């Protein structure tokens, strides 16, 4: 089943640096994880986001960051959407807004998601940025520009720090038996 990625969830870090991919508004989960390939991980890896940015599935690298417009991840509740982006190496997503299921599934999977009210027009695919997750600060390392995003709620930040909700649950269960 495609819904299980092969890569383990990355360790949480407060500050990450990476190259960005600029995505438009309303990127839907069918574009990220097409319905046709839900039973095929390789095909999903091959076709993910191809209708948005043709070269994305071929050229995305481990450690890259997505910077998107409004309503990122709209549509289906399929968790293969954030999962496949993690599998492709994406380490964080910054967007003007997120569809709510995509947002909460990303948190649940330990994938940092930061809301930034307005993505500056100067941002381009390939720019390097530095993201401070707890402070929700985004620094464009090319222009030096610093932007303030919306801070992740402390309760949700804790879930990210523990590498997602499965780890949270497993440690809660462990706590019960001790």
């Amino acid at each position: 089943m495609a819904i299980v990625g092969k890569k383990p969830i990355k360790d949480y870090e407060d500050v990450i640096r990476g190259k960005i991919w600029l995505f438009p508004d309303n990127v839907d989960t069918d574009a990220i994880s097409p319905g046709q390939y839900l039973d095929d991980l390789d095909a999903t890896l091959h076709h993910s986001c191809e209708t948005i940015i043709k070269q994305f599935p071929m050229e995305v690298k481990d450690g890259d960051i997505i910077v998107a417009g409004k309503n990122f991840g709209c549509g289906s509740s399929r968790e293969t959407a954030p999962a496949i982006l993690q599998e492709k190496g994406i380490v964080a997503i910054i967007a003007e807004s997120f569809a709510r299921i995509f947002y909460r599934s990303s948190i649940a999977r330990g994938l940092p998601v930061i809301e930034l009210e307005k993505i500056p027009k100067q941002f381009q695919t390939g720019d390097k940025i530095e993201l401070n997750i707890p402070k929700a600060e985004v620094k464009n390392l090319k222009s030096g520009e610093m932007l303030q995003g919306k801070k992740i709620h402390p309760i949700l930040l804790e879930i990210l720090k523990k590498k997602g909700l499965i780890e949270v649950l497993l440690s809660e269960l462990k706590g019960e038996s001790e």
Partner: protein
Amino acid sequence: MSGKTIAEKILGSHSLTGENVKVNEIILAKVDLIMSHIGTAKVFLDFQKIRPPKKRKVFDPDKIVVLFDHYAPAPTEKWAAVHDLIRKFVKKQGIKNFYDIREGICHQILPEKGHIKPGMLIIGGDSHTTTYGTFNAASCGVGNTDLFYAYVSGKLWFRVPQSIKFEISGKLPYNVMSKDIIIKIAGDYTSEVAIYKSIEFIGETMESLSIASRMTMSNFALELGAKFAFGVPDQKIVDWLKERTNDSLDLIKPDDDAIYERIYEIGVDDLEPQLSCPHTIDYVKPVSAVAGTKINQAFLGSCTNGRFEDLEIAAKILDGKKIHPDVRMIVTPASQEIWIKAAKSGIAEKLINAGAIITNPNCGACFGAHGGLLAPNERCISSSNRNFQGRMGSNAAEIYLGSPATVAASALKGEIADPREF
């Protein structure tokens, strides 16, 4: 202190971190019901991470409903294996509320089988779980990992949403349906109008609508970003549900002085049939603006519009006529109950005689993985809820979303057509 919205009341009564919940606060709440379909397989896999194995127990098997509606019956060996795994899991966990491939689409089955009640807090492994808002339940979709957490613990975190109201007034014109209202709202206010928000649909039009028509709106509200999508809390809900459950049914109504971020007023007296045009649901035009566009396929079904009244209006338009020879019309009733009613009432025969095919109740062509896929450069008119590029097959195909009446009228003419002419 100000009053409370429906969302604030239901979240408050389920909160484990204080009853007096505030907008934007994150709370931990107990859930009354969990629904999952194919994603149950991932829940099963996550269960295997729990040590020791004897702790692999769901929190309450009677508060979980599992069913098969996507990929039902299994279209490939891989999906057959997934179904097999889920069947064994539900048996082992003692989940009695399991509906195998025979019943139909989750969002129709749960209300029909009496699982939904006013005031409940429900999560589902399907985005259109907002549909149960019609029955005065706070219900929303989540991903598989959230499902797993709730399956084991019976609780989950929620952000308390801001609420908005859509006040609908006026009388819908002939062959104009609730789908046209919600598509019009998408066009006027975009697919972001309700992100993270709880919608309450109110007004005289809502009161006059059938439960099925209201469900269309609570369902499609997800496409506007909604977390919850409540219909009017009235006696119609109670009358519909009491045929299906013996439990007490107490409506949750908002306080008069509850705070809403915004109230949108929509008049429908002059509403034309509407279409979401390719490839976003909020790229909306009246049918008249695109009439004449050739189509290859017409799909009548889905959790949005696969109910009896949807089949009925289509049959009325197609009765005694033949659909255009270049059009394939696929009809997928949302449940067996609807299928049987369509058969007994003669509606199924009318649809078949007009040239449509009727499939077993499932998610079908809507999600592009199981029957009714589109070839490059083909065009489909669909009563479902998504027209994203590639949703129903080829990335080079186009999907127009409209009401069941518009789907039927278009199937007849072989091109997008206005149902008011029939």
